[in-house]
């Protein structure tokens, strides 16, 4: 029993480490790609690592209060937790994480854990922009969760399970078994929702550096920021892995995982570099419009 537990925890650490490194690299890569789109060279691939080191190397920190202090902790706990509840690689023991403890619903609700904590921390900083950004972020979140939820429901109908492992195993055996082909409407709806989740343009209303200097983390710095940046890598990848599992047949080894998550992420990135920003209410209306209809259609088609 003890040995089993230790093994599981060790595996989780390995999985987490791999995913963190990959996530940070992916962020660097994206910066590079964005720079290329701009016609620049861009920072080096490892720039995110340096940034994290630098932030942690800051000698001073301030704190506004307990929740401010705990905010980033919540955030990264949320990111790590989300990732750990998703089986990353199908069939792999190391990357199965803690997916035995809950199903898709758990993951969907665990998304909120970090956001809520971060919002609380940002709130305690007392900075008006933080509060405004949180208000925007939460508002947008409610909107993009709708098509995503519909899409998940469509999957639940399709596969008659809410277990992510179950959904992945049902997609094995050929590219045509992937949800993206068997249930394209649900996939489209979910991918549009993913754009919102990733908060790239046109949905970057939370950070919006030109309006409300980077929103919730305005007051966060030094080691806090280090944690947030780490989380950004992990949480981002958690979402990508989830989408890969749900819609793109999952991954059987780390290479496929990298390829698939990278490809999914590229969608956000390409959309991001191509569009300006929505206003919040536009974003809400957008998600409750076509994507929601697609989601509803996906549910209806599956039910028929």
């Amino acid at each position, binding site marked *: 029993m003890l040995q089993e537990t230790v093994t599981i925890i060790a595996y989780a650490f390995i999985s987490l480490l791999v995913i963190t490194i990959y996530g940070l690299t992916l962020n660097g890569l994206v910066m590079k790609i964005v720079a290329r789109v701009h016609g620049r060279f861009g920072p080096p691939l490892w720039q995110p690592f340096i940034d994290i080191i630098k932030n942690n190397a800051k000698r001073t920190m301030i704190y506004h209060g307990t929740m401010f202090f705990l905010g980033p902790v919540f955030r990264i706990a949320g990111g790590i937790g989300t990732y750990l509840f998703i089986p990353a690689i199908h069939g792999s023991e190391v990357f199965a994480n803690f997916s035995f403890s809950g199903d898709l619903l758990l993951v969907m609700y665990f998304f909120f854990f970090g956001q809520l904590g971060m919002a609380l921390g940002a709130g305690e900083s007392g900075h008006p922009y933080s509060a405004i950004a949180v208000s925007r972020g939460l508002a947008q979140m409610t909107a993009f969760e709708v098509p995503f939820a519909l899409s998940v429901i469509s999957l639940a109908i399709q596969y008659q399970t809410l277990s992510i492992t179950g959904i992945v195993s049902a997609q094995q055996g050929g590219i045509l078994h992937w949800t993206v082909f068997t249930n394209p409407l649900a996939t489209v709806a979910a991918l549009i929702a993913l754009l919102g989740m990733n908060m790239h343009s046109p949905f970057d209303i939370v950070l919006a550096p030109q309006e409300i200097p*980077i929103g919730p983390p305005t007051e966060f710095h030094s080691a806090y920021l280090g944690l947030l940046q780490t989380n950004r890598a992990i949480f981002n990848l958690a979402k990508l892995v989830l989408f890969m599992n749900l819609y793109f047949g999952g991954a059987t080894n780390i290479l496929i995982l990298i390829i698939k998550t990278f490809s999914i992420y590229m969608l956000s990135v390409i959309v991001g570099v191509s569009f300006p920003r929505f206003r919040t209410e536009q974003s809400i209306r957008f998600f409750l419009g076509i994507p929601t209809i697609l989601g509803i259609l996906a549910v209806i088609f599956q039910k028929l």
Partner: protein
Amino acid sequence: MLKNQENQPQKLANAGLPEHEKYLFCDARPRIRHPFKGFWEKFLNWARANSIWMLAYGTGCGAIELRPLMTARYDVFRYGIAPRPTPRQSSVIIIGGYCSVKTLKRIIRSYEQMQNPKFVLALGSCTINGGMYWDSYNTINRIDAYIPVDIYIAGCMPRPEAIIAGFKKLKQLIKSGKAEGANLYAENFDWYKANQKKIIKDWNMPDYNW
């Protein structure tokens, strides 16, 4: 090199604030933060040098030169330099040209809100001796009487290439552990503060903006 501050009072008076607002501001003195010794500090300094986040705050006309710096032509991102909208997260503040009294107040506030280690890059002649506005009633002639400047980049205005050169110099300073402006400021806090208060008449902020 750095003096101990034991005999100084621990709390700031914040005399510029009205009594009923004093509780709203932190009254702690800035403290000297000693660097680590040896390789560890060198490693950290390497990271600090390669990830310079500058405060996106155009204090003067020189800010015009910062846009080309970040776009495709000069692309300072190559060097790990990136703009940052909040002083809390930035490590360098660029004094972009002539500095009026009014701006100085904001510069001081922003500078104080940045976290140690932090660096100051002064741009153009005006920051050195007032430049063409040397005899203006409202222009600060010598910026380093108010905040510790790491690098001056001469010129009116300095071209982006000069600025990049300045950054390179700053990197070298950081790597060599010589860019300890923040500690300098803390060490000579009373002197700096006295200078600042001498020129800023309507001092309505705490003595140190945490």
